[in-house]
């Protein structure tokens, strides 16, 4: 596909930066990646979420031509990763999970070598290295060997090295693992800026808030397969709706309050009388106004009211908890759910 009509491909950019179908990788009988499908639209940030050992790194390595898939196909902007690896390599930048820079050399030397390998002349390479070091606030440490770098500096240099050729697709395998909150926020800012320049970013992460903050779409990988895919909101919605929590001031009014809630919202609610608390699922946020008016008219005084959205944590735990593999069909999802 895609490649059958290269002329057409040249005239318009392929809408898909990544298209993978049925990717499989086996390590000595163990299926680390077991039929992964991924589609990443160009110009977006795509998050790959999953617990340890889910197969995220293995998937990224296959997409980045570092590992040969045992089965399945993958294309990068329409170019096949197995048949046209050298073209794919001209289109991607890879920042692996573990530092992929030379420990014994300095930051400048690393960047110069990578630039030279990418075809820049000696002076261009020097300029590029200086520019990237400035960009990633590494100028001061530029001459020191990397052994003396902190984890965050190494990570930044690693990313800088992936950006030398300004590739249209960038793979980031756990870009912020081990970074302090401030450095992580800087990394997020950098990633957002990359996408503004027209790049596509595929990142893996174990931090749900990271995926929440950055990713346009997310795939949750578990046991080598995609168990859910969609936008952050879709994934949250798939796990459960927001819930409304009310606390009444006088405990004896709780029954009346409950009747009010059920009438207005037309749902079953849960009452915990000791705490004076009512919890009800909430599908339509608009109805809350009606409810508040109804409660005022009934003379019920509230001490507290809150709406709780499901967190991505819940999504993650629901999808990657063991109950998923046992009864995946029990999830009433409005996103595509495939079995892992």
């Amino acid at each position, binding site marked *: 596909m895609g490649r059958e009509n290269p002329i057409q491909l040249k005239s318009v950019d*392929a809408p898909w930066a990544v298209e993978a179908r049925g990717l499989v990788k086996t390590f000595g009988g163990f299926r680390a990646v077991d039929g992964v499908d991924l589609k990443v639209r160009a110009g977006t940030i795509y998050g790959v979420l999953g617990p340890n050992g889910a197969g995220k790194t293995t998937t990224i390595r296959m997409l980045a031509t570092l590992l040969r898939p045992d089965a399945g196909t993958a294309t990068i902007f329409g170019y096949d990763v197995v048949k046209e*690896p050298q073209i794919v390599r001209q*289109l991607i930048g890879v920042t692996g999970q573990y530092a*992929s820079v030379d420990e014994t050399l300095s930051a400048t030397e690393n960047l110069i*070598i*990578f630039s*030279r*390998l990418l075809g820049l002349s000696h002076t261009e390479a020097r300029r590029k290295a200086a520019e990237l070091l400035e960009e990633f606030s590494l100028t001061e440490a530029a001459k020191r060997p990397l052994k003396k770098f902190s984890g965050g500096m190494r990570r930044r240099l690693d990313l800088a090295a992936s950006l030398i050729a*300004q590739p249209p697709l960038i793979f980031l395998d756990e870009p912020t693992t081990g970074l302090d909150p401030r450095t992580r926020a800087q990394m997020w800012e950098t990633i957002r*800026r990359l996408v503004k320049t027209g790049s596509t970013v595929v990142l893996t992460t174990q931090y749900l808030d990271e995926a929440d903050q950055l990713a346009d779409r997310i795939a949750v990988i578990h046991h080598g397969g995609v168990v859910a895919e969609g936008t952050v909101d879709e994934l949250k919605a798939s796990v459960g709706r927001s819930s409304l929590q009310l606390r009444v001031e006088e405990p004896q009014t709780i029954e009346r309050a409950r009747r009010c809630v059920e009438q207005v919202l037309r749902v079953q609610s849960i009452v915990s009388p000791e705490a004076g608390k009512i919890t009800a699922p909430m599908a339509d946020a608009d109805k809350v106004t009606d409810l508040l008016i109804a409660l005022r008219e009934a003379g019920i005084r509230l001490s507290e009211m809150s709406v709780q959205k499901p967190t991505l944590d819940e999504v993650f735990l629901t999808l990657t908890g063991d109950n998923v593999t046992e009864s995946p069909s029990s999830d009433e999802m409005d996103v595509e759910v495939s079995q892992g």
Partner: protein
Amino acid sequence: MNQPITPVSQRQLRNHTSFGQSVRNSFTMAYRGILKIRRTPEQLFDVTFQPIIFTLMFTYIFGGAISGNVQSYLPVIIPGILVQTVITTSVVTGVQLREDMDKGVFDRFKSLPIARIAPLAGALLADTVRYTIATVLTFTMGYIMGYRPGGGLSHVAIAAVLVIVCAWAISWIFAFFGVIARTASSVQGISMIILFPLTFLSNAFVPVKTMPHWLQWFVNINPISHLVTAVRNLANTGTIGNDLAISLIGAAVAVAIFAPLTVRAYMRRA
């Protein structure tokens, strides 16, 4: 980083690397190897101390016994030590290649649109610097101890180049082990098993006629012996003989067998 990237449709993409690019990439990788040597000078211990210590030790221990006195042993032992040291140094190529391939930076090389062969070719190329250091040091050490090669400086230079070329050829053997082995220490182990008989069962340190017959047979076909003889002839008398041709043929055979093997194994891994 803030200017827009070139869209995929406007890029010129080719799925193969030209010969010119392969050469450029290999030289960049060699440059990296040399930078690494400069940054970690302790790596040069073997090529600096071995020539100095071995030359001193062997000359004063065996000199009297083998050649009657130290002065007349020098023309025998200096070429011997030279060959032994430089060939031993070539083992490092394999060990370092293994270490390098296990590092994260190799992943980056593999993800760049460069000639696949460049990291391997670059490593082998950079190591000729080590051979050169070892060669210069051995001759210098000999000179300090009173060695005055009769062939003159130009023939000594030819001998040096010959040794470096042969060491480079032999380094393909160790590079092969480096590529296929699982750990760096196993590369070291296997390589030493090959290296020891090759360098010691030769005419490098003692005259062949003092050895038992069955051993003479091996020593005489050992290509290292021919290399040592070729170096002795060049340095001491300035003559070029059969041994030089045999050494070069041996080197060519080593490259012809092990270069393709290594490259194939390497490509499969890389």
